[in-house]
């Protein structure tokens, strides 16, 4: 079984305030589930070391995405733009 690492993240709004209830998806060989950010905008997931694309969706379908090398990076901060 592939070793996994615990990757933690936070979703923030354009002002740097945490967003609870934002949807986070992680693309590339993981199931199509959407995580929800909790208290403090926090989320957590176990992943095999690899390059993933993290996407966060907030109120008004505001969206941010970033590619992360999980293994080298264990904390992801996703800062949403202002809703259009």
């Amino acid at each position: 079984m592939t070793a996994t690492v615990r990757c933690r993240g936070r979703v923030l709004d354009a002002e740097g305030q945490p967003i609870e209830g934002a949807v986070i998806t992680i693309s590339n060989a993981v199931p199509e589930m959407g995580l929800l950010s909790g208290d403090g905008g926090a989320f957590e997931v176990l992943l095999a070391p690899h390059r993933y694309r993290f996407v966060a969706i907030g109120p008004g379908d505001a969206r941010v995405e970033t590619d992360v090398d999980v293994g080298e990076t264990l904390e992801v901060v996703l800062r949403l733009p202002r809703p259009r």
Partner: protein
Amino acid sequence: MIDVKSVSKPLAAAAGGALETLAVEAAPARRTRGHVGSATQEASRSVRYLVAKGKSAPLAPSARSTMLETVIGVDDRVRILDTDLAPWRMVCALRMRGANGAGAIGTGWLIGPKTVLTAGHCVFSSQFFGGWASTIEVIPGRNGSDTPFGSVTSQSFTSLDRWVESEDADFDIGCIHLTQDIGTNLGWFALGALPPEQLEGFLVNVSGYPGDRGMGTEQYHHRNRVLRVSERRVFYDVDTFGGQSGAPVWIHETASSPPLAIAIHAYGIGGTPANFGITANSAPRIIPEVLTQIETWVAEDGGWPPV
């Protein structure tokens, strides 16, 4: 022929005990009956204009960008607004909560009066929940902030042994057991275990609750042709997004046939083997052995009413 077994979420009182298993005999390919529901029989205009039926001629190969996401090329998803009508009302937005406190969204669909089928990782995921989900809120026909049939919350789930023990993507199938009958009113999908050669060329429909539209509160549909069928999976060029895990993948065998669910959507393009040479999303198929297990799950919830 393979052997699949059911694994249940341990009851709170039995936490730490051995997992329950049920032996299953393999079964030949077959279908179960669906039910349109006793709620309004008004015909959905969305069905008339959006749902694909029958088979299509082979599609011409098209240039496609290789994206990590699962909206393949142009986003062709269409929002369903008449979610109070069949079959859309049988499709449920899911709100999961893990024992570790993690929240997540997914999609499920009614397959009996008190039974909802979904992806295995919506009920059990070491990756997201550290094991079994603790609760799942089931919201049939959700349409933004409108929940036309309310919601029910369950703490009773089952999956297949091959998912729980090794999270094998070919068996990424889960079941949510309800304590109240909502299917008699809303209806449920028929299920079909069809051989691979019979599925080739069919147009498939996928409808669920993607996280990038209304944060998983709006139902979106897309349909397209089956690109490939393997022993246990079906691959298709249908646009989806995280949150649609567990959505029904259904066909209409003829223009007048009712919907027949043949797979459970679970994976974006990252789940398609590179050597297939296609850009596709995919779902574990309802193979005969899995259908036998699903029938057992429905029976444990009280079963289908006699015809």
